[in-house]
């Protein structure tokens, strides 16, 4: 199961991976491409091998911190139009606190650590690499 994909993300598929009868709280997070300054889409590219290794490390850390939780994620790469998701994270745990915490942990570490870059494409045909601004 690879965590980097080129296709549309399916929340249902992620939920199915983490949910279980002993886990009563499930939290899903989606990051979607936002329309900003005439942006029509974002082209995502990655240092694939490192991104995959880093995702494994982040998920392992979440598992260590919240041993009863199950967490997984997908990051989509390639051209993603406005309104579609670039990242999906699902966490399920016996209770909601752990599910929210594990989900939050993964998105925050992803933002800090994944070697992934975006290039904004605008309606006028121009393109612009995005150089991190830390909005939350």
């Amino acid at each position: 199961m690879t965590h980097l994909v080129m296709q549309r993300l399916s929340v249902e598929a992620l939920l199915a991976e983490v949910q279980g009868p002993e886990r009563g709280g499930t939290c899903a997070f989606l990051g979607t491409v936002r329309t900003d300054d005439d942006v029509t889409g974002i082209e995502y590219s990655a240092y694939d091998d490192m991104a995959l290794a880093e995702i494994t490390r982040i998920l392992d850390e979440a598992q260590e911190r919240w041993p009863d939780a199950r967490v997984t994620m997908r990051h989509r790469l390639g051209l993603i139009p406005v309104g579609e998701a670039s990242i999906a994270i699902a966490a399920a745990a016996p209770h909601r606190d752990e599910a929210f915490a594990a989900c939050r942990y993964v998105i925050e570490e992803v933002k800090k650590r994944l070697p992934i870059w975006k290039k904004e494409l605008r309606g006028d045909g121009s393109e612009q690499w995005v150089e991190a601004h830390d909005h939350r």
Partner: protein
Amino acid sequence: MGKVSVRFFARYAELAGCSSSAVNVQTPATVADVISRVREVFPGTQALPPRPLAAVNQRQVKLDATVNEGDEVALLPPLSGG
């Protein structure tokens, strides 16, 4: 001298004019040594910041980290995943 593979991503690949290559440096070297060599070999990378983010063998490291022959050094623009 040892051969070190170098990788460039996103805007840095555009500046370097390629996404992967190799440079020869006196090994063991530091990441900073490799970057100095890269700036000579790929003139476009002189526009890189003085202290770019870097990874050695797929782990982010500081610029004084050691680089051995055969290692893969990647220069990373500011990360913007998610």
